[in-house]
């Protein structure tokens, strides 16, 4: 069952472009430039999948999410969520999806959280019994009880995000779009949010698409990663695949008894050295770990060693760095 279909999605904005002209000229006869935020993105997401949507600042992530949520109309291409066309069938869509924008709250500012939920019960027209059961569940899993009578404006960021997540899931949507849900949260708050999302995914088969700049979110939640850059999809695959492709090596840090000349073999090379310690990098496709260990033990007087598997963080950093050095048009297409 596919839940989300994005086909050749493009979205451009018209922005005022003074182009060195005077403010008066711009006022009298405004000139516009076209900003292409998303340029031909295609992917599908199956029911129950949790997918990370990554990309550097300004890549087009939020724009895509807004198109999926029915806030923005695509300039071209098609978008379907749960079989619906977002902008045209916005109200039906609203009943089936939940959306959280980490930077914006959906809670009414002066209203206690519980009262907001009561209002949402009316807005979504939920039967009382179903609402109560749902609320009970959210109360437990999100720990709402401690602040449910507090107006939104008095909540800490972590509490607000939990309350927002609760609000997005109150009506039991089957798809959840999260735009930077963990932004600004402390380690524990992030952890509890992730646990909640994972559990909801497992128990309700919730489909989740989330954007984030915190790679721990990806490691802990997502089996699949989409990467967008300058409005184009540059990767679609598993965390293992993205690692294989962008960081095809593994590093080993060795404690050595005495200095020896650096190793520079074929597919194994020393990349850093401090007193008493060397870091060696090997290409995973060429050697297995035991083979490398044997070679290293031969060359270095090894006292101890530590294997540094590449983190998603490092992989993504490399990706973003390499994309920044190439102009968009010359970047290799996948």
């Amino acid at each position, binding site marked *: 069952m596919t839940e989300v279909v994005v086909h050749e999605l493009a979205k451009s904005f018209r922005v005022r472009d003074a182009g060195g002209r005077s403010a008066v000229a711009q006022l009298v006869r405004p000139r516009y430039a076209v900003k292409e935020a998303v340029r031909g993105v295609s992917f599908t997401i199956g029911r129950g999948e949790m997918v990370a949507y990554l990309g550097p600042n300004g890549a087009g992530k939020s724009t895509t999410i*807004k198109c999926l949520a029915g*806030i*923005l109309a695509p300039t071209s291409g098609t978008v379907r969520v749960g079989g619906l066309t977002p902008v045209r069938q916005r109200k039906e869509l*609203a009943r089936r999806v939940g959306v959280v924008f980490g930077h*914006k709250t959906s809670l009414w500012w002066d209203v206690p959280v519980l009262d907001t939920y009561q209002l949402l019960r009316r807005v979504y027209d939920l039967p009382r019994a179903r609402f109560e059961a749902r609320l009970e569940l959210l109360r437990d899993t999100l720990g709402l009880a401690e602040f449910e009578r507090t107006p939104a404006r008095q909540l800490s960021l972590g509490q607000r995000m939990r309350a927002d997540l609760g609000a997005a899931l109150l009506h039991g949507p089957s798809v959840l779009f999260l735009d930077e849900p963990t932004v600004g949260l402390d380690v524990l708050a992030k952890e509890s949010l992730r646990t909640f999302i994972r559990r909801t995914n497992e128990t309700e088969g919730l489909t989740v698409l989330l954007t984030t700049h915190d790679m721990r979110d990806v490691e802990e939640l997502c089996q699949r990663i989409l990467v967008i850059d300058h409005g184009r999809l540059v990767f679609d695959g598993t965390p293992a695949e993205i690692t294989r492709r962008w960081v095809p090596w593994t590093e080993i840090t060795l404690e050595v008894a005495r200095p020896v000349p650096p190793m520079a073999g074929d597919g194994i090379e020393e990349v850093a050295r401090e007193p008493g310690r060397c870091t060696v990098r090997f290409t995973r496709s060429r050697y297995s770990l035991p083979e490398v260990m044997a070679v290293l033990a031969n060359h270095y007087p090894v006292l101890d060693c530590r294997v540094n598997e590449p983190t998603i963080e490092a992989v993504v950093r490399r990706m973003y760095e390499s994309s920044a050095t190439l102009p968009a048009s010359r970047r290799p297409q996948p």
Partner: protein
Amino acid sequence: MTSAVGHGGRVLLAFAWQGARTSTAYTTAYWMELLNAAVRVFAVVTVWAVLYRSYPQQFPVTGGQTKTYAAVTQLTAVMLTWWSGAHHRIARQVRDGTLYVDLLRPVSYPFQLLCWELGESAARLGLVVLPAGIPLFVLLGLGPPGSAAGGLLSAASTVLSFVLLYECNFLVGLVVFRTLSLKGVQHAYHALITLLSGLWIPLWLYPGPLAAISQVLPFRSIFYTPAAVYVGYLDGPAAVRACAVQLGWAVVLWLGLEAGWAGTRRALSAQGG
């Protein structure tokens, strides 16, 4: 269809209830509001009493009617808080970007806003207008409605006033999407209301040209009509006709609002919030 109406009604009630609770959330502010309302009504009634005593021959109504008209319009104004209605809420939501959050809900944005405003107005009616108004009416010796029918019609007319004012405010609010600021428009708009709605000056005092202008605009229906019906200056067929005009404007402006909002929605979904 009936289920949609039922749903709308339930949303309306829930928001009204919430509006009442939010209005009473700040106790100090509440007492100040009550005091402010009382002072305001007292002051305006006093001014008109003095004016009437000085130039009784200028007035087509009695002194009692003049004072009552002043009190009714001021209390209605307090209930509707026309100076900070939907247009301010829209401006704030455009500024802080929370508008598109409201677009994510399965209820239309104009309807959501209407519910909020209605809730808050209903709350102010119960919590401010009646507690301040009833003692003042007794204290200042102000009159009951001209007739029972006039009283009922005036109450119905006040509901239409609420709707009309909401529509005007919303339409003004739509301008914010183009200008990103309410400043200029708001001054012009508030000047129009002050001059042509009968809020400060009963329209029966207006000279020919100004009266003619006020005739063709919707603003007179907001404050003048319910108050003039209440004091009995408009009664019988004239009162019914004035309320029919109100209803007509309410329908026309609602269509305008829907069209304006549809256009803004299109622009928003092309350009983002």
